[in-house]
């Protein structure tokens, strides 16, 4: 038993160190920077930080994206749940959400930029404006709303709607009085997520404003600019902006959770699900969304990647393999590819390990401390990426020296290293395996572990022989769920990368904004291809598991 307690103490110590480095110190650094502000400096800092436009634009961006996602997402969700759809259409609805938003941004710039876009004129929209950001982000986040609505409606037992029919309600009344009200909690939850995602998005507004003559600034791009322009005066400004960003970024989900709680009902699960009906018009509508939001941008980047001079049309004289050959032989790509692969692999593995330990402690030991630690570890996922990145930058941008007993000194020198990016990625995404492990542990009856204990296994044996094998599928899924966003991460990387630590996201960002949009399109196709392979691997893993 003593050994067991020792082992648990070691686990808790590791968890504490990780939490200190990844959560407590970065967020503490933000607070310290805030506390260091003097009142008399405030007007100057504020004046330099924002002209009101960024704040207003961020608010409009949030509301616009919310409107677009619900306008498209609610009918899509109803169609997914209640209309018989071809399998590829139903699966395709997820695509726009899976494609990294900056890839679709590159695509839409090629499709709809005011001077030489392929669709310019067809689309009454200046892609370089706030409207363009709302359009791209709205299409990107629509699947989240649609799938939330679908999930909520699928869990409504058929008898709920049948009872209304027998009571005298027609199809329209059922949708209005029964079905949609029961999807309301799901809509509120998704609205909180959509608002937070829109406020926190960096890649879309930055890429769209980088090419614009009079860009519409938002809070995240202002934070980046403040730090780029002058590290000294920029930091207090960035911290103030980050504080503003927390209002929609964390406040909105909390507010909508509270509203959802006040609605105060959960749809009882169980019973037969509602049979979908055949409605070709609705199926065509879903197909149109998939075509516009996923297929069109994908086709655009693929064409763009073979275009020699973007904007000069897509005639045979302007198509060729040169962009691919140039990029594939470019040393910067090799370095970025190597860095991103190492970082994503390491971060996914570290996040799974940390998530397993934290989740097991919270779920099986369940002391207030363990549950508090698990909750704190989710923070970096909940706050906007720019805020986390800023905190990590403030905290780790200089060497940190620990002196023990006047003799031993440890120097932690992270700035401009892959270590810092790895720490950032792990901190950002540890919530995914943590949640996965907790959910799997929750659905795993404790008697499974108790039976192993009665059979004679110690704590280590139980974990090794019972818990871990049962959690393995959940952890495998979580590993891919962390690997994929890390592989093409942009928001954190752009703030934390050094001259020698270029990654794929930042390279794409650089190519699109400053160098060669055709090369950016090639890289975008590569990123999508890797993500597609990752998704296929995840799907295969799930299928093999289903088969055994």
């Amino acid at each position, binding site marked *: 038993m003593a050994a067991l307690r020792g082992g648990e103490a070691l686990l808790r110590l590791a968890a504490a160190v990780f939490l200190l480095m990844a959560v407590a110190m970065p967020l503490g650094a933000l607070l310290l920077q805030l506390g260091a502000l003097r009142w008399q400096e405030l007007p100057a800092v504020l004046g330099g930080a924002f002209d009101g436009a960024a704040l207003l634009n961020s608010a409009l961006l949030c509301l616009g994206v919310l409107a677009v996602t619900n306008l498209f997402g609610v009918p899509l969700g109803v169609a997914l749940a209640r209309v018989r759809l071809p399998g590829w259409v139903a699966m395709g609805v997820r695509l726009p959400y899976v494609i990294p938003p900056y890839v679709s941004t590159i695509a839409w710039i090629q499709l709809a930029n005011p001077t030489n876009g392929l669709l310019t004129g067809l689309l009454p929209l200046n892609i370089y404006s706030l409207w363009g950001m709302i359009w791209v982000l709205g299409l990107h986040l629509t699947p989240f709303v649609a799938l939330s609505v679908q999930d909520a409606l699928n869990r409504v037992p058929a008898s709920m709607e*049948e009872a209304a029919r027998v009571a005298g309600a027609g199809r329209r009344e059922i949708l209005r009085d029964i079905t949609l009200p029961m999807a309301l909690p799901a809509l509120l939850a998704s609205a909180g997520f959509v608002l937070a995602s829109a406020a926190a998005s960096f890649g879309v507004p930055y890429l769209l404003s980088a090419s614009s003559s009079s860009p519409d600034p938002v809070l995240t791009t202002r934070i980046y600019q403040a730090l780029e322009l002058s590290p000294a005066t920029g930091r207090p400004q960035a911290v103030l902006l980050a504080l503003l960003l927390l209002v929609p970024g964390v406040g909105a989900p909390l507010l909508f959770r509270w509203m959802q709680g006040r609605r105060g009902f959960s749809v009882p699960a169980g019973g037969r699900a509602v049979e979908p009906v055949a409605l070709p018009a609705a199926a065509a509508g879903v197909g149109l969304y998939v075509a516009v939001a996923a297929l069109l941008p994908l086709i655009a980047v693929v064409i763009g990647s073979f275009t020699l001079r973007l904007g000069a049309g897509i005639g045979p004289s302007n198509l060729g393999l040169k962009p691919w050959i140039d990029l594939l032989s470019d040393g910067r790509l090799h370095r970025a590819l190597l860095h991103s692969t190492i970082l994503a692999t390491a971060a996914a593995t570290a996040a799974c390990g940390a998530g397993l330990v934290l989740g097991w402690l919270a779920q099986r030991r369940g002391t207030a401390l363990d549950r508090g630690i698990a909750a704190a570890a989710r923070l970096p996922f909940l706050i906007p990426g720019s805020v986390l990145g800023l905190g990590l930058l403030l905290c780790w941008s200089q060497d940190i020296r620990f002196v023990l007993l006047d003799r031993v000194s440890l120097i932690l020198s992270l700035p401009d290293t892959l270590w810092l990016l790895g720490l950032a990625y792990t901190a950002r995404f540890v919530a995914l395996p943590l949640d996965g492990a907790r959910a799997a542990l929750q659905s795993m009856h404790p008697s499974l572990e108790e039976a192993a204990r009665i059979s004679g296994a110690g704590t280590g044996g139980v974990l090794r022989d019972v818990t871990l094998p049962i959690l393995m599928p959940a952890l495998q899924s979580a590993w891919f769920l962390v690997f994929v966003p890390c592989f093409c991460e942009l928001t954190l990387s752009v703030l934390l990368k050094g001259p020698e630590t270029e990654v794929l996201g930042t390279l794409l960002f650089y190519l699109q904004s400053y160098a060669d949009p055709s090369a950016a399109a090639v890289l975008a196709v590569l990123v999508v291809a890797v993500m597609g392979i990752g998704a296929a691997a995840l799907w295969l893993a799930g299928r093999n598991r289903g088969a055994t």
Partner: protein
Amino acid sequence: MSVVLAGVTKSYGSGAAANRVVKGIDLEIHDAEIFTLLGPSGCGKTTTLRMIAGLEQPDSGTIHINGEPVVAPGRLVPPEQRGLGMVFQSHAIWPHMTVVENVAYPLKLRNDPQARTKALELLQRVGLTGMGDRPAHALSGGQQQRVSLARALITRPKVLLLDEPLSALDAGLRVELRVQIAELARAAKLSVLLVTHDQEEAMSISDRIGVMNGGVLEQVDDPAGLYRRPKTPFVGSFIGHMNHLHAVRRAGSIYIHRVFIRESPGFEEPVRLSFRPESVEFAEVGIPCVLRSRSFLGAFTRFEVSVGQERIRIDSHSDRASNFLRIRECMIETVKMPTAEE
């Protein structure tokens, strides 16, 4: 006649893989009658009820409700226009509405300005006084089923459909609620179609019972008739306990182990006797048997005995056993045997 079904069939799937759930049902439910469809799960009873409600479409056959055809060639009345009341096994209480909103909803669809008042009155009658403004999901299972019942009755339908309404509740509540449902139905002169797999529930409140098995209505009778005169072996063994013993017919008489049972004209062949536990008793002479167990159950004593290789049950008011049996009443069926060549 409140509800009349003629030649109703229903299959799921098509072609060779079709699963024929209801294989041609003819059924009449009289006015102000409590009629029960009883059978094991998967026998087609719920499908039959859902076809009456309009929630499933029959493949063939006709259905009339209150004299009006609702399913007939070229005619299919949707459920919302059939004017029925229905209680679901899962209660189907809408969680986003309060109790009174749930009950008043059918009247609101009919633009009744007094919907709320009427709903509150009805809630009183089902024993939910003062609970109208509670959120529906905060109620217990039994209370939810009362709300469901009130919602089904609010439009004063002539026909009430009950789809296993009590099976999600615990035993004591089941008895209490089924008595209450029967009282409400008789007071309002409702025609009730109850679907259940619980024979005690069916026997206790029904005027007539239809026993279904494998998509076929095997027998329709009042409860006593079903128990005393089962027409098929399935009905006999589904309603109450049925003993079976193998016997032979020789020269117009039935014998078990060479003991004469009774006269029965017919072919000389093996037969099977079916009889209730209370239709057999211990005697001084008769069929030899060996006592296996004895349980005192209060009003009677239950014996398990073996006769040769077979086991039977005896319910007796006396707790004394002996080594011989006498069968007072039994049914005789022929047993299919291998043909003479074999």
